[in-house]
């Protein structure tokens, strides 16, 4: 059930449509002070209209840029729609961005109005205000701690709303006129790219592009207005805004905002979403939590879990491969579901999930298969900010774990000789904001967009993504080196949080390892290994042995894949502290920024290739140890055996 009717070509128009069509149905739910509070479509439309009236009185107008800085909150969503009602372009920012990052985004997009969530965000904004003189107005939602702030730019959301309600009467015709004036080809959002390979770029997307893609995806997922989604990823990421704002606007389903990121899991369990967007990172974290808990139990429970998961995974693989499953296996799978998979789905808050997607980064096939074996209909989705997110997705009944699925309707794919994926689609972005040169570089005259991803199409027309073009390299012997595929295999293991593989232009692959402190700490506790903190645990000889075992297992798996057999990890280092976005090693969506890491850890990498057993690095008191990993015989021999 989607709103395919003509004329509904912007989100404010869609909102009014829903307010009339399903006014009393929930649009957004938010857990606030322990209770789920519902905002109906009618209430959302009313609040949006009032906000729009007040915002226009404060200078928001057609073409101006309004930034959002905060978590998913009904009020920020209302603010988004209010700004769009007036024809303004909304730029959602990452709420954990540093003040400098925020400043550069505000400057780049020439933002005049900002909606901020709380004191923390306001503090950031006030600090950079001198550098961003075009910012006229900062609206804050939560007034805690804001009593002492007297800056003239500040206004509370409540005050704005009250003012808007007073103005709503006299401005009604004006706001309605502005909404009616909005056209599908107008820019709706300005998203900043995650900036994996360079500084973030502002991507302008139109209403038509977003609505067209969202409508198509909704048809494929058979979404309707009784569906429920969770809004728990950063709104600065296009995926979250699509699943939490664009698609609800198109379909009329309800979005739930958890109380905080700490309560996400239990909140999700309470709401039981039916439509779910995840990222490989979230899934990795969930899996690590599950394995950690299973490690902590023992005896019968642990054996039961292992056996049941083994059955579930075997049956799942057989089903995907299209083989018939024997009656005994079917019975066993049924029992596994009853005993382990069902309860586990419930604990993860996924027992009602009909359709789940993983997007944003490449996922390790094993990770995908784990969740599919659990009975969750998890599928890969490929797309980026510039391509309107929905480019290719796996379809029910045609899932190959190592591909991202077939292109969606309307999407044309082309591969360059260097295997770069080119996309032409109605969902493509309009331009990089105020940067025609870069736009022309990325999108050619015929409308083909260079994704920067290397991939290939298999015989069924399914797309397989190898890695970012910039990162795919070759080892000295000429074989392809795709670091992300290797790293994802490492990250699948519970003790490894993050890994960075090096090997382009080298004779062998080496890796930096960042341990998962909770799982490794737990492992250490169980063994009586004592440590004072992350750095000491990471440097412990036993932990090195543990990680060496993990890598040996990964090497065995790499050896079994022809493309990756030469990419086995020869040497590794365990880092004394986490790679973090604040130091620039990761993007805000948690992707590696390799050029930064290569620069920061140059001494370590050189030492690994130099054959040293240790190296002094940074402010560590002791030498950082370097160890060799066990390399497995090449695949050809193994395949014969």
């Amino acid at each position, binding site marked *: 059930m989607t709103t395919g009717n003509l004329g509904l070509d912007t989100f404010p128009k869609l909102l009014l449509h829903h307010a009339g069509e399903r006014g009393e149905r929930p649009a957004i739910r938010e857990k606030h*002070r*322990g*209770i789920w509070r519902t905002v109906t479509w009618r209430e959302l439309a009313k609040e949006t209209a009032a906000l729009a009236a007040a915002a226009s009185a404060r200078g928001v107008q057609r073409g101006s840029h309004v930034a959002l800085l905060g978590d998913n909150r009904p009020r920020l969503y209302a603010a988004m729609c209010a700004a769009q009602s007036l024809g303004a372009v909304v730029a959602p920012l990452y709420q954990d961005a540093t003040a400098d990052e925020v400043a550069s985004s505000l400057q780049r997009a020439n933002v005049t109005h900002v909606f901020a969530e709380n004191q923390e965000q306001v503090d950031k904004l006030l600090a950079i205000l001198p550098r961003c003189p075009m910012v006229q107005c900062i609206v804050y939602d939560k007034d*805690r*701690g804001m*009593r*002492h702030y007297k800056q003239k730019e500040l206004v509370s959301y409540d005050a704005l709303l009250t003012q808007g309600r007073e103005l709503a009467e006299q401005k009604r015709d004006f706001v309605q006129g502005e909404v009616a004036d909005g056209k599908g080809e107008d820019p709706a959002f300005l998203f900043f790219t995650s900036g994996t390979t360079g500084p973030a770029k502002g991507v302008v997307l139109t209403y038509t592009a977003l609505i067209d893609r969202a409508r198509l995806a909704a048809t494929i997922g058979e979404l309707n207005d009784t569906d429920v989604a969770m809004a728990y990823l950063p709104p600065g990421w296009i995926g979250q805004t699509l699943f939490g704002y664009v698609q609800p606007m198109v379909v009329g389903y309800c979005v739930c905002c958890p*109380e*905080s990121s*700490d*309560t996400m899991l*239990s909140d999700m369990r309470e709401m039981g979403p039916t439509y779910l967007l995840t990222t490989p990172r979230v899934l990795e974290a969930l899996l690590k939590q599950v394995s950690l808990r299973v490690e902590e139990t023992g005896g019968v429970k642990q054996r039961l879990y292992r056996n049941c998961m083994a059955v579930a995974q075997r049956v799942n693989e057989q089903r995907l491969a299209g083989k018939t499953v024997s009656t005994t296996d079917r019975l066993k799978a049924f029992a596994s579901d009853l005993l382990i998979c069902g309860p586990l789905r419930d604990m993860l808050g996924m027992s009602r999930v009909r359709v789940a997607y993983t997007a944003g980064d490449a996922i390790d096939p094993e990770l995908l298969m784990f969740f599919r074996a659990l009975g969750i209909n998890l599928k890969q989705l490929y797309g980026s900010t510039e391509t309107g997110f929905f480019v290719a997705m796996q379809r029910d009944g045609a899932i190959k774990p190592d591909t991202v699925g077939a292109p969606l309707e309307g999407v044309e794919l082309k591969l360059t000789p260097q295997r770069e994926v080119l996309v032409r689609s109605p969902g493509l972005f309009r331009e990089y904001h105020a940067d025609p040169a870069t736009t022309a570089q990325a999108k050619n005259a015929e409308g083909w967009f260079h994704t920067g991803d290397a991939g290939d199409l298999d015989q069924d027309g399914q797309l397989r993504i190898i890695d970012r073009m910039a990162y795919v390299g070759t080892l000295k012997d000429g074989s392809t080196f795709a670091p992300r595929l290797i790293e994802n295999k490492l990250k699948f293991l519970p003790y490894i949080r993050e890994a960075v593989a090096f090997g382009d232009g080298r004779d062998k692959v080496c890796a930096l390892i960042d341990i998962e402190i909770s799982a490794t700490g737990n492992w250490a506790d169980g063994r009586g290994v004592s440590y004072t903190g992350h750095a000491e645990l990471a440097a412990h000889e036993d932990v090195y042995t543990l990680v060496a075992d993990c890598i040996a297992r990964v090497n065995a798996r790499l050896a079994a894949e022809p493309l990756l057999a030469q990419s086995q990890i020869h040497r590794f280092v365990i880092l004394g502290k986490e790679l973090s976005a604040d130091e620039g090693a990761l993007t805000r969506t948690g992707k590696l920024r390799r050029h930064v890491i290569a620069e920061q850890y140059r001494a370590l990498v050189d030492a690994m290739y130099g054959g040293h057993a240790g190296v002094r690095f940074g402010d560590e008191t002791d030498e950082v140890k370097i160890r060799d990993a066990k390399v497995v015989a090449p695949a050809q021999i193994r395949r014969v055996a």
Partner: protein
Amino acid sequence: MNVTPPVQSSILQATERAFPFGPPILELSSISLRFGGVQALTNISFNVLEHEIRAIIGPNGAGKSSMLNVINGIYVPQEGSVTFRGERLSEMTPTQAAHLGMARTFQNIALFRGMSVLDNIMAGRILRTHATFLEVAFQLPRARREESENRAAVEEIIEFLEIEHIRKTPVSRLPYGLQKRVELGRALAAEPKVLLLDEPMAGMNIEEKQDMCRFILDVNDHYGTTVVLIEHDMGVVMDISDRVVVLDYGKKIGDGTPDEVRSNQDVIDAYLGVAH
């Protein structure tokens, strides 16, 4: 001794206070307390203004906890009197103190260990509940109404102290710093006029101490609650207190703003030791 400038209080002085100081809400005059032959407190007088953060500091065994227990009505001093909100109290039980608007936390946490965070803080609402046992047992209208009012108040505190994620967790499973925070929450639930904190930062690491400082300042700023706190760690106290009383061997050796106290020779001697 600690010579870093008092960061937080200077900020508060620079901007206007949400709740300006009122008249003395609590007055102690010539308090002396003996346990048998041991003189725990000798002739101590000071007052606490409404809406201020007042610290009692001193080395170990200086009589800080005894002082707090006198204020709270646990000990009855042999001499002197306590005047609270204009009422002179010669003999007061802790229950009366609670009814008059005092709430406290303890040096060694005194929570209901098996109960959840939510239930522990709900317990702090007991004085705000008027329904009788039978009304509650049969869930009559007044009991039901009060229950939801209390829950709303408790949820506000949970949000205020940022402990949403442990709402349903049994207290015994929480780390020490969080337990301290829950105890503060339970004291706040009584909507006290005066909050007595007995070594709120004891045994915490730096991060937990900073968190606790922020919450104490926020409580004072947001609810206007008068805070009387005991600490032996001077550094933190100086940063958040408006005025400080210094005790040593049961005697008052200093009283004033953190800066005044810091430059007081007796205080320096008591903390650093002095050659006699």
